[in-house]
C-alpha cells in the first residue's frame, strides 16, 4: 500500500479546570484510542499520532509518531488556557512534520485535527485562529467541553464545532471512541475519492449522543 501517512493531531486542554476526573478521562481516552487503532490494520498502516497540550503554555508532548511506536503520554492539569500558543504550535508542527505534495514527492494525507477545550482562551488567540482557518492545513474538529467553553471561539478556528456539555468519564470515553471510529473510517476511506466525493470534505461517523454539532 501507499506510503502516505495520515497525520492525526490531538490538542488537549490541560488547564487547571481540567484537574481531577477530566484530565484522568483524557489520559485513559488517549490510551484507549491508541489500543483501539492498533486493532485495525488500515489504521496501523497509515495513522501517525501527535499530542499537543496547552495550559499556561503549549507543548507538543508527543511528536508525530507511527501508531505502533506511540506511547500514551502522562498528562497533568494546571495553569491557564493558552489556546493561541497551541494553535501556533500546531501550525508549526504541521509545516515541519507533514510531508507536502510536490512535483517530486508523494506527500501525506490531509491531517485530521481534534481540539478540545473546557474554557475561554487566556492568551491572544485570535491571530493564530485566523491564520489556521485561512491556511486550512487539515480537517479540524473542535469540541467545546463543559459549561464554560465558548463554541464561538472555536468557530473562528473551524466550521466543525461540537459541544460536549457532560464531562463525565463516560462522556469522554464515548468521545474518544468516536475519535477512533473517525480515524478508522478516514484511514479506510482515504485514497481514490475521485468523482465520488470532493477531496476537500471528509465524512465522519455520527457523533455519540453526548456530543452535539454546533450550528
Amino acid at each position: 500500500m501507499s506510503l502516505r501517512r495520515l497525520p492525526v493531531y490531538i490538542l488537549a486542554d490541560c488547564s487547571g479546570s481540567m484537574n481531577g476526573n477530566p484530565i484522568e478521562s483524557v489520559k485513559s481516552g488517549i490510551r484507549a484510542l491508541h489500543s483501539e487503532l492498533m486493532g485495525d490494520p488500515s489504521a496501523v498502516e497509515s495513522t501517525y499520532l501527535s499530542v499537543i497540550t496547552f495550559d499556561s503554555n503549549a507543548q507538543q508532548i508527543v511528536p508525530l509518531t507511527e501508531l505502533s511506536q506511540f506511547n500514551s503520554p502522562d498528562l497533568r492539569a494546571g495553569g491557564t488556557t493558552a489556546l493561541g500558543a497551541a494553535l501556533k504550535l500546531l501550525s508549526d508542527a504541521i509545516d515541519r512534520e507533514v510531508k507536502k505534495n510536490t512535483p517530486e514527492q508523494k506527500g501525506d494525507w490531509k491531517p485530521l485535527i481534534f481540539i478540545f477545550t473546557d474554557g475561554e482562551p487566556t492568551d491572544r488567540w485570535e491571530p493564530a485562529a485566523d491564520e489556521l482557518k485561512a491556511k486550512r492545513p487539515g480537517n479540524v474538529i473542535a469540541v467545546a467541553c463543559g459549561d464554560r467553553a465558548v463554541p464561538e471561539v472555536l468557530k473562528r478556528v473551524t466550521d466543525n464545532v461540537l459541544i460536549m456539555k457532560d464531562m463525565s468519564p463516560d462522556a469522554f470515553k464515548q468521545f474518544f471512541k468516536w475519535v477512533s471510529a473517525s480515524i478508522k473510517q478516514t484511514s479506510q476511506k482515504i485514497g481514490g475519492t475521485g468523482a465520488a466525493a470532493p477531496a476537500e470534505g471528509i465524512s465522519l461517523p455520527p457523533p455519540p449522543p453526548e456530543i452535539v454539532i454546533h450550528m
Partner: protein
Amino acid sequence: MAAAPYFNAKTVEGVEMTFETESIASGGEKVVFFSKQHEHIIGFFHSHLADRLERKRRLEKIIGPFNPTKDGAQANHWKKHFCWPVGIVDSRGVKLPPEFMRRHNLVEPVLGVVVPAYRNNFFFRDRTGSVREKKGRWFTGMKARKLLPDSEKGDFKRYLQVCAVMASAVRRLHFGGLAHSDLSHNNVLIDPKNGDACIIDCDSLVVPGIAPPSVLGTPGYIAPEVLTGTKLPSIETDQHALGVLLYETLMLRHPLQGPKIHSSKSAEEDEALAMGKHALFIENPTDHSNRPNPAPNPSLSAMGSHLQALFLKTFVSGLHHPSGRASAAEWEKALYKTIDLLHPSPNGTEWFPLEPGTPMVCPFTRQRLTSPVPFAQFYRLKGPGAYTHDQASLTVHHNMYIYKWHVFSNVSPMDADREPQGYFSFHQGKWYLVNQTEAQMYVPDSGYVEHGQALEIKQGTQVILSAEHNGRLAIFDFMNP
C-alpha cells in the same frame, strides 16, 4: 449502562433470536451486536436511510433467490466462504428502548441484517484473550504484517490457496449474476495458515433488477471507470477489485501505487488520478513511468506464466477497458495451474512457481536449485490414438502426491476428493512415479505399471496415468540448472 443485557428480535423470515445489548462495533454504516450464543451477528443501519426500501428489497433477494448457501449440492461449501445474510429484522420484529436507539444513532423504522458469526480460524487470539478478525489487510499491509506472529503468516503455497478460494467465491457470485461491489482487504477474512478465506459484507451486492448500492467500493479497489464517474459497480468492476486483491495477497504491494506523481495539489487529488483516469500498472511492460525503484520483489514474472498473463490482462489491456479484464473463473483456473507449478525452495521454507524458461531460483529465499527438476506436460485423448495438449502441466518434487485432477482430464480440483493417486520419489539418484490408482498406468510400447509399482521417470518418459476412461497422457522433461 443499559438495563437489560439482551434484546429479542424476530426476523422477517420468522426466526426468534436474542442479542446482547452491548455493541461489538460501530462502523460508518452499521452498529453490530452478537447473538446470545455468539453464533450470529445483527447489524442495524445507523440513522435515517434514504434508500431503506431498496436496501430491504436487495436483502430479500440476497437471502432468497440469489442465495448460494441455501440450496444445491455446494451450499455447505459456500457457507464456509461467504458470510451470507440469513435474516432481516425490521421494526415489526424488534422493539428497542428509546435510550438504546439514541445511544446507537438508530431511528424508526429500524433495519437490521443478521449474518452468521465468522468461523473460529478467522480470529487472532492473543494471551490477553482479546479477539481480532483476520482481515486481509493484516497480511498484506507492510506495517500491519510486522505485528503478526510468524506462525500466522503462512507460505506462498498457502497464499495461492487463499487466492483460489477468493477467486472461486467471486466466480460463484458472478455465475449467479451478482456483483459484490465492495471487494477489498477490509471485506475478506483470510487464514494463510490453512489456506482459507471468507468474503464478508455481502449486504450491498449488486442484484440484477435492483438499483446498484450507494457504496462505490473501498479506495484502492474501485475500478478506474467508477472513479471517473462513467460507470457504476458491476461484475466488470469486481474483476478489477479481484485483480487488486490477488496481486496484493501474492505480492504484498498495490498494483497501481507507484512513484509516478499525477498531481502536486493534494494527496487526495493525486491518488484519485493514480487510481482513476491516469491509472498505470507499476509493472507495465512498456510504460515504465510508474515503476518502483528499486524493482519490487517478487516481480510479476516470478508468479508463473498463468498468473502473469492474467495480471497483464487485468492491469494493462483491461485497466481502462473493462471488458478486457480476467474473469474470476479464469483466475481460479490459473491459480490451480500455478499451484501445480510449485517447487520447494532449497531450504524447504518456501514455495515458488517453477516452469521451463524461468530461472531456477526461489524469489523469496533467493536460493538456487542445483539438481534437475522433472516437469510433466499433460495430454488428453482426442480420438483413437490421438492426444492433444490439455493446457496443464506439473512441476515435480520429491515426495509429491498426484490427485484425480492430475490423472484424469475431466476432473477439476474444485470438486474432486483428495485421495492420492500416486507419488513421485527421488531415490538413489533416480526419479520414480509410484502408481496408487485403482487401475493400471500404461507406458506405450512398453507395458503396464500396476498399483503399487514404480516407474522410473527419464527425459521423454511417456505414461498414460490411468487405463480408465479419460486417463491423461503425461510426457516428462527435465529442467536443468
